[in-house]
């Protein structure tokens, strides 16, 4: 107990620094070559365009309608999101199997999983326990 009391301040300081650095976004700051995959990602357009293109895909829209989600409503919510929030969604789209970006045919199960992940973030569905519901919702 004595130990805890005497070390409380420095311990707290260490914890504060550790927690703060954990929540900082990871920015690459070392001198490096830009990898080919990064060039491809930039070539595929801005995250906002990638998300918009994904929601425009006919298979995605059909799947959303099957799930009872209005594609127009999803598009409207996406349009209202900030760049940082869009990045989060674009990240999920980029997790599609390698070499199968926007425009490719992907397995139905994978597609539904990603749609639900995105619509969960948009607050349109409530399927996964690990997403913060409507965390990207413009309020």
């Amino acid at each position, binding site marked *: 107990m004595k130990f805890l009391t005497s070390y409380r301040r420095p311990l707290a300081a260490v914890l504060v620094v550790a927690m703060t650095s954990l929540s900082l976004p990871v*920015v*690459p*700051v*070392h*001198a*490096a*070559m*830009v*990898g*080919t*995959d*990064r*060039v*491809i990602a*930039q*070539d595929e357009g801005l995250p906002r365009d990638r998300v918009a293109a994904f929601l425009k895909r006919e298979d995605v829209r059909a799947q959303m309608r099957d799930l009872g989600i209005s594609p127009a409503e999803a598009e409207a919510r996406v349009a209202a999101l900030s760049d940082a929030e869009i990045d989060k969604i674009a990240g999920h789209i980029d997790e599609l*199997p*390698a*070499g199968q*970006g926007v425009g*490719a*045919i992907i*397995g*139905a199960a994978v597609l539904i999983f990603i749609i639900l992940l995105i619509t969960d973030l948009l607050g349109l569905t409530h399927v996964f326990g690990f997403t913060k519901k409507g965390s990207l919702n413009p309020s």
Partner: protein
Amino acid sequence: MAKRLLLAVILSLTAAACATPQTDDLRRGSHGLPARAAVAKPVFFAQRTKECGPAALAMALVHSGVRLRPEDLVAEVYNQGREGSLTPAVLAAVRRHGRIAYPLNNLTDLLRSVHRGRPAIVLQNLGLRLLPRWHYAVIVGYDFGKETVTLHSGRTEFLEMALETFEHTWARGGHWALLTLRPGEFPDPVDEGVYVRAVAGVERAGRAGTAAKAYGAAVQRWPDNLIAWMGLGNSLYRLNRRRAAAAAFRSATLRHPGNAAAFNNLAHVLGELGRFGEAEAAARKAIALGGPDVATYRATLRDILARRKRNSGGKP
């Protein structure tokens, strides 16, 4: 009323199940394809139980000059738990063996590749959508007169299957097909974007030599393709061929003077080659162009300046 509704539902379901749009399209016109074609001397391996994935993959890879047997691929692609091979594993295996995995997803392109003498791996769902039976085979021929395709499938060599049946089973498999190309080989027709992305897959699999060769062929064919120039530079850099890498990045900057990444990579390599003046100029250009990776470009510049300082024995 209910009866009529039921009838309508059944009719619409049958209609959906019978549609073979791509076969119908080929019946209307053959898109310049000859009436029949066959791959010359296609390799055949009879599959062992449930190992159609390794067998089909081996047939395609051996045909494109890789020396191996289906048994060699089992560990790489066969998934014991799923009793089959998943498509990403097949894709990865093609790349690991130094071949470019080029996807095809329409029937005309598939038949054209047969006509050009290239067998393609195809994924079929021989069962129903709800009760799938997945199967990999290799397409090696077709005949419009008989309306058939020829497959190396399972334990059967030259299996003839009605074109319509093939389209059904292939469509249920998600229109998934793959060519295994040598570096420098192009499919016909070829999509520039799909091709360079396929080569990027080979680069990602760590086959820098193969990737460099394929990117090299790609920049000859499409001299304005940024991804191909950058991929070429990155692969050559990985092979420790810095001078050649610098030349590739230089070409990228000349053809895409607005691309910051090209200037950054050029700066990085020139810095390592000790050409500090040019390196600094390129790094500053990358920073001026900016973009989401500007922190990396600044670090590149710092690195170049530090190198120069070390090189001149600490004197500025």
